[in-house]
């Protein structure tokens, strides 16, 4: 017995190190799992509060650019609205039929883009009707998907994340592919699995595909910067320059799909029947 105690005392540094190292590895692996409750994240009460406080201080510096962005977006929406007014009177608000997609707004209080698995923190959570798997966009285009949520804060897995897979397509020819990120540049993402039959040119617009329950079809992503394909490969590898400046996100919109539950339940039912 004494021997065992001596052994522990002699090797206490190694013991403490081994235990702490294993704990931190476990914490690291835990963050690699997509949405589950995490305590060690900036969405908890203390760190969320600190980030919110910091944001309230630095908000003023960006007010000018934020205003400009909002003005720009208002202008686009106004022009679009004007086109509709001539065609048909605005439909009366129907209380029974919900629109397919609902929009909420939030402010980014913490933004990462220099890592390989980037996430941003929002100042709203489950208390403000946010849910896991909601799509997140800004006035300039796609941002990411809500991956974790607490009462007052939410975490978003952005498109600048090696685990991110988002359905996207070419605007002009409707060829579908998957949007990934190769970690090299925070303003460039990659579109893969576009078949070689598709005709691509530099400057073509890439939009969301609408084949998931998260994003509606037609949200802007970016333009084709360059593309290539290996000789014996049937698919293109396309670099997409984002419309969004992922390094200066301030205000974002969240998309809620009111029919998501129904679609997922139906798909689940089909899977179970197989």
């Amino acid at each position, binding site marked *: 017995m004494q021997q065992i105690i001596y052994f522990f005392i002699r090797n206490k540094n190694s013991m403490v190190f081994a235990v702490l190292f294993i704990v*931190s590895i476990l914490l690291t692996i835990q963050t690699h799992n997509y949405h589950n409750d995490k305590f060690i994240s900036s969405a908890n009460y203390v760190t969320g509060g600190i980030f919110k406080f910091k944001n309230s201080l630095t908000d003023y510096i960006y007010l000018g650019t934020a205003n400009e962005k909002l003005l720009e977006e208002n202008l686009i929406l106004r022009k679009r609205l004007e086109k509709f007014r001539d065609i048909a009177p605005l439909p009366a608000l129907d209380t029974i039929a919900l629109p397919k997609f609902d929009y909420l707004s939030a402010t980014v209080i913490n933004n990462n883009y220099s890592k390989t698995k980037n996430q941003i923190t929002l100042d709203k959570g489950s208390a403000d009707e946010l849910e896991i798997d909601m799509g997140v966009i800004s006035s300039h285009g796609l941002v990411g998907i809500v991956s974790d949520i607490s009462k007052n804060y939410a975490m978003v897995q952005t498109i600048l994340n090696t685990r991110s897979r988002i359905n996207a397509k070419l605007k002009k020819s409707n060829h579908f592919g998957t949007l990934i990120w190769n970690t090299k540049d925070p303003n460039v993402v990659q579109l893969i699995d576009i078949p070689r039959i598709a005709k691509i040119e530099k400057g073509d617009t890439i939009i969301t595909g609408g084949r998931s329950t998260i994003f509606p079809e037609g949200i802007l992503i970016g333009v084709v910067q360059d593309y290539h394909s290996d000789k014996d490969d049937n698919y293109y590898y396309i670099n997409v320059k984002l419309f969004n400046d992922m390094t200066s996100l301030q205000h974002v919109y969240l998309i809620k799909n009111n029919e998501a539950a129904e679609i997922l339940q139906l798909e689940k039912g089909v899977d179970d029947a197989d």
Partner: protein
Amino acid sequence: MQTKEILINIARFVLLVFLQVFLLNNINLGGYINPYVYILFILLYPSDGNTTLLIFLSFLLGLSVDIFEDSGGVHAAACAFVAYIRPLVLKYSFGTSYEYNTINLKKSGATERILYVASIVFLHHFVMFALEIFSFGHTLLLLKSTLFSGIFTFVLILGSLIIFTKKTT
């Protein structure tokens, strides 16, 4: 450790975490190069202090940065690792004599100081980026990040050591 020294270390801990989270994490030079100066706490911890305590404190230090950065436990693991290996690094940087007389990092010779700081910085960065990237497919990115961020951290740490050294005349 004396009470004064304990208080200095606590203040250094808190100050470095806040400096790291609110200022240095936002630099992002060239998209991915960030200095991680908070490990100055581990470097400046007294060489005759309790190593077990240092390992534990370093773990907490790394974990604090992790919570703000949403990186799981990569900083905690890297910090615990360098704290554990620090006596070894001290031994080969300053020679075996370090066990008998306490080292004052601010007064020691340039070569020894550079060797000590560089070893700790690069070991820490390598472990941290390896855990963060966590894939063999990105080995080049791992080496690049370690090298560039490491150089950045190293320069800032040496600079702050020179600036904050009390002049003894």
